[in-house]
Structures are given as C-alpha cells and as structure tokens.
C-alpha cells in the first residue's frame, strides 16, 4: 500500500496557490510593487517609532499600501469564510505559547532575512533570485527540524 502524498486531496492546494500567484501578479501589473508579506511588520512601526531603522524611505514610502494589502488579505479570507468556509470559521488548536514564541522568531528572522515564505518563497523565486532559493532551503530545513523536535518533545 502506498502512502498518499496528499491525504486531504490536492486540488485545493493547487487552486489556492494559483490564486495567491494571481494576487501577487495583479499587484505587480497594476502598480509594479512586489507583494511579500513580512515587510508590513517593519513598515507599520514607522508610524509610531522614531528609530532611524524604521524611518528609512523603503518603509515610509510603502507603509500605506502594505497596510491596505494586509487588509485585503483579511477581507479575502473573510470572503472565503462566508462563501465556502465552515460556519464557525477556522480555529487552530496549536497552543498559544507556541504561536507567540514562534511568532517572535518568525518576525525577527523574516525581517533579518528580508523575506518570508511569500517574499523569498514566491516573489524571490519567481524573480530567479539565488539568495531567495538559499533562504527557502534554509527555512525549510530548520522548519522541518523544529516541527519534528516539537512533536518528539510532546508539543502540538
């Protein structure tokens, strides 16, 4: 008996991926902007923090549309919820401490690396950027090690 690579089916994964690509592509065709999602977590700080790092032009000049883009993500998922999703919505059972501690590392690491799963993984790879390929391979490996270590140690 073979073990399925996609025990929950594969069509929704591919369809979702194509839609994500369509969103990033539409943004580029209409505005020429690159739609990675981690930068908004730095650029939004420029509204409240006077630190020189956050006052860089690359954050000031893009902070408004990045927030609008993030709002679009929320609206898009809300549309899916109303139209196709379960009545009660999605509720993760991953413990809050894992979400909080993991989030800290995700935010710090993605901004240090200047990209995340969408910035390096989608925009970077689609631009044939070798640094992004290195970044993707690196976070896949450390992600795989950590996720399995958490399981081994009895986490969620």
């Amino acid at each position, binding site marked *: 008996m073979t073990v399925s690579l996609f025990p929950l089916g594969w069509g929704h994964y591919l369809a979702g991926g194509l839609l994500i690509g*369509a969103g990033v592509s539409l943004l580029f065709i209409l505005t020429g902007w690159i739609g990675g999602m981690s930068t908004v977590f730095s650029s939004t700080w420029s509204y409240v923090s006077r630190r020189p790092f956050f006052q860089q032009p690359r954050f000031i000049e893009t902070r408004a549309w990045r927030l609008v883009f993030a709002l679009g993500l929320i609206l898009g998922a809300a549309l899916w919820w109303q139209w196709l999703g379960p009545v009660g919505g999605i509720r993760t059972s991953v413990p809050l401490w894992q979400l909080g501690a993991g989030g800290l590392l*995700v*935010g710090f690491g993605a901004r*240090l690396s200047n990209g995340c799963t969408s910035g390096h993984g989608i925009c970077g790879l689609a631009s044939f950027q070798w640094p992004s390929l290195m970044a993707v391979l690196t976070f896949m490996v*450390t992600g795989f090690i950590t996720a*399995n270590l958490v399981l081994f140690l009895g986490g969620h």
Partner: protein
Amino acid sequence: MTLAKFLAVIASGILFGFGLAVASMISPEVVLSFLRFRDFGLMLVMGGAVCVTLLAYRYAPRLLSRPWLEEQFSVRPSALDRDTVLGAAIFGMGWGLCGVCPGPAIAGLGAGNWPLLVAVAGIAVGAYAQGWLQDRTPVRHH
C-alpha cells in the same frame, strides 16, 4: 494614495487572502503536517503561486511599458549575505514551532482564527526587535 491604487492593492490582497484560505494555509496544523512530511500540499501551493508570479514578473515588463497606475516596475532587492541565511534559519525555527508565517497570520484573522492574533503580535514584536538591533549595529543597513 489615489482611489485607483487603493482599489488595485485591496483587490490584489483579496485574491491573495482568498487563495491562502482556499489552500488551507490559514490552519497552522496543515503547515505543520507539511513540515512533518505527512502532507505535501504546501509544495503545490508554493509551486502554483511561483508559476503564476513568474509569468507576471517576466512578461509584464516586456508587454507593458509601465504598470497601469505607477511609473515603473519594481525590482525586488536581493543580497546573499549572512543576514539572509541567518534570518531564514531563525524564521524557519519559528515557523516549525507555530506553523504560521506572516501572510497566513494576517489572513487567518479574516476567517475567525482568533488565536493567530497572538502570532501576529509575536511577529510584530520580533520585527521591532530586529529593527532595534539593526540600529545598534552600525554597519549593516540593507
């Protein structure tokens, strides 16, 4: 921001967020089962997204003299240095711990996945810490 740009960005974001939800990436459980080799769906999500984006990034600048609402097509800044790899390694550790990355953390809120607010807060604090640290290390500003 003009109304046209606002509508362009929000429509693009809606497609992105809708796609993340369709692909079930707003459930950290699905991402974690990929990282545990139980479900390879994330490869299809990323593969599908890269294929479409690649076409746009490659052909839009050839077919259009400029984007519809702006002066020029941006080029993604890119550098292979220590920070790119070290940051990715740290990002991956966090990703493997919580199963959440920046896009799904934000989008998940739209589908009622309220616990992801904790992840969003964590990411925001982590991003602040990174900026704070950069200001203390005078050499690297990329």
